[in-house]
């Protein structure tokens, strides 16, 4: 009778990630971003979300994964954070997964330190692991 939680899953460089679904405001198709010169590399640019200016973060750069191949168009996960809505760029969205609390485990030490600092832990799903992203850390630029 363990508690279950809902995660919105998505992929980055073939890895499975998840963000608690109540933190996701919406998922929108990729649209042209306004680059911000002088901004940290993890900031992909600014997006117009229905009149609101939203900062978009490239999760691949944030997690120090390989750059996204040109043939993949990213998707925009609009996430509620302490600083209002932010946009996180992922490769592809998966389904909403209902996972049990007991499958959760803190991140193993073997993960890269960068990755470990950005994920809260992993859920052991059948046949694969889902990394639970720390959304607050994911939209930090390291400068503050």
């Amino acid at each position, binding site marked *: 009778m363990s508690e279950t939680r809902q995660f919105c899953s998505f992929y980055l460089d073939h890895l499975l990630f998840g963000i608690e679904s109540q933190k996701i405001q919406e998922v929108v198709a990729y649209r042209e*971003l306004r*680059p911000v*010169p002088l*901004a940290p590399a993890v900031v992909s640019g*600014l997006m117009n979300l229905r*009149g609101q*200016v939203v*900062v978009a973060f490239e999760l691949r750069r944030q997690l120090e994964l390989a750059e996204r191949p040109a043939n993949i168009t990213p998707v925009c996960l609009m996430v509620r954070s302490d600083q209002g809505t932010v946009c996180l760029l992922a490769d592809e969205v998966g389904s909403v997964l209902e996972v049990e609390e007991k499958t959760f485990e803190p991140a193993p030490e073997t993960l890269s330190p960068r990755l470990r600092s950005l994920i809260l832990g992993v859920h052991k799903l059948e046949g694969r692991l889902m990394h639970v992203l720390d959304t607050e850390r994911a939209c930090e630029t390291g400068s503050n």
Partner: protein
Amino acid sequence: MNENDDIVKEFLVESHENLDRLDRDLVELEKHPSDREILASVFRTIHTIKGTSGFLAFGKLESVAHVGENLLAKLRDGQLSLHPELTTALLAMVDAVRQMLASIEAVGNEGERDDQKLIAELTRLLTAGSAATTAASPRSRKAKAGTGTKPVPKEKTVSESPASISASEAGPAQPVTPAGDSESQSLGDILISRGEATPGEVLLAVAEQQAGDPRRVGEILVEQGAVKSQEVLEALRAQQSQAHAQGASESTIRVDVGLLDQLMNLVGELVLARNQILQFTKKTEESGLVTAGQRLNLIASELQESVMKTRMQPIGSVWSRFPRTVRDVALSCHKQVRIQMEGQETELDKTLIEAIKDPLTHLVRNAIDHGIELPEARRAAGKDPEGVLLMRAFHEGGQVNIEISDDGAGLNLQKVVQKAVQKGLITSDHAARMSEREMANLIFAAGLSTAEKVTNVSGRGVGMDVVKTNIERIGGTVDVQTTTGKGTSVKIKIPLTLAIVPALIVTSGGQRFAIPQVSLLELVGLDGDQARQGVELIHGAPVYRLRGRLLPLVHLKEVLKTGGAVDGTPLEASSQAGEPDGARDGFERVNIVVLQADGRRFGLVVDEISDTEEIVVKPLGRHLKHISVYAGASIMGDGKVALILDVLGLAQSSSIVAETHERARAEQEQARVQDSDLQKLVLFAGRAGSRMAVPLSMLARLENIPGAHVERSGNQWVTQYRGQILPLIRISHALEERRNMERAADILTLPTSVNLQVLVLENQGKSFGLVVNEILDIVESGSGPQSPPTRPGVLYSSVIAEHVTELLDVPAILSAGESYDPLESNAAGQAGS
């Protein structure tokens, strides 16, 4: 406590408003001690606070308010008369109440405090004062006291007074037909009170309506022949005007600022959606859609304007506390100051109101502390011992102007300059060349103010730099003007709102940027040869000669590191931004946006200058806030995001870049020490091949004014220039030469068919145009041999650019120009001789 929270909150909001008024009222009361209306208002406020705090069990608050109330009751009843000591005590009480309210707001109780002293003081005044008045000053007020002794409830009944005569009769009708009924009530009342109908007739009509008659009471009455339809119409009109009057008292509500901000955002979105729809309608033939689009356009614009207005507040809401400040400061420096306000109703955005609060307070304190002299000194100078502090606010050109002027001693410019030189802010040579206005504005320089605080440099230095920074932060400007012995005036200009600003849209590296128009001075475009030769390098730092002055250039691409070679930034656009800047490679067009920030002028080189637009400023959020070159972002008409440049940030970040250049230049400068002796002069041709010059520092602009634009105003030739009337002075008139000429004839022959070369000169804040024959050059000249002037209006003659040249005395010419009257005899117009 929890269920009380709402009540407490309301109490706090209400009390804060009341306290602000209280401050003002008390100060006002001091001037007009017998004004019963103000007294009643003060009494009412304290009474309300006392009552509510008792109800909410804030014991300490209640006890303080209680003594205050007692004191005020005596004042109101004429048993006491107001004197400064009493006012001070009452103000102290208001302060205590305010502190307690603040504490309640923060932690939920009045806090640890001991008000016994204050209470004792108030009680002492209560007893001492009453004895004194009865014994010593049986003022005439005692005669009126008979009417005044009645206790409070007076005001309460007032609000209930508009009770209707026949309310009780018509009352029972209410539940049946509420709409018709409310009308019948008052309509019936009006008819009865006008004597047009009897109460019986009206009741009958109401009863009939209740029985199911669908008609209105008026119609029934007319039908019954009780009244004429004309009378009913008149009564209806009266009824409507009543409804209006009632509406006014109920027409304001409190709204959460957050909600207004949200509305503002939504309207912003609506405007963008509208822009997109308008673009579609341009392509369509369907007339219905086009009309609908146009209506949408109009409505959205109006809506935007209205929502903007909801955020507007009159500046009086900040000013209301200044009478108190003035009183306190004046008292502590033993000065007499009267405050005058003009334009309290001038509205500006709420966020701006907050932002200017502190700078304004500072300026007010400064004006009293350093500006206005002691009463004896004023009397000695032949002035009214009571100084006047004038605060003025008005709208002008989409900006709010605020002036704070005093009629004090004015700044001691020599001391200010001396201090500035001493502090190393300016060189003594520079000081010698400064205009009075520049000198006065030195008080805003950072180093000057934080120095020894009281140097008695008729001071004004304390924290003036902070005032300036704060005003500039909100896109405003500040300027000071002073006349020795007459007073000082500080002028502040701030934008109406920060949410929507006019901005210039430029393109650099394929991306659009917005530059707030407040910092924009002018645009310069260089083509072909000009582009190749116009931009020069000083040790690698690009500069452009703008009317003879070197304008440091900053390439936007370099600052933002979006130029082709530099990388490391995630730029999709960087590939196409690879094309080199025109200036550096010496071809194509160079676009220079001349900007001003923090008193520094510089030119920003961009790829393209598009247009000016009103943009909605969106904050960038914490993630990008540390990048100082951006002030925010905005969404353009096509839905794309553009970054707003922060001009101050740009200047700062580029000066870091330029630091090395600066050092190189300094070295270069040392090689030619006498450089500081150089003065820049504008050379122009006088009569018969003679040459004349004026210092470049006095020159605001060079203009070519078409003769057709010259108009006559009284005895003077003027032209409309940048929204002002610019007096034109012909150089030959200004100088003695006119004596030898047929002056009147010359005026008539002021050629209107050709373009006039005009030097727009500035002196002591006044502009005027000097019409010259031909502008020759702008040169730097050292102090060569000088010979004394041969005529008034000339400072000296010297050899400049290998020719003997007369250097004009601009202030003298100006004053000559002012008093110049062509009908008078020749001598009248001559300069200060």
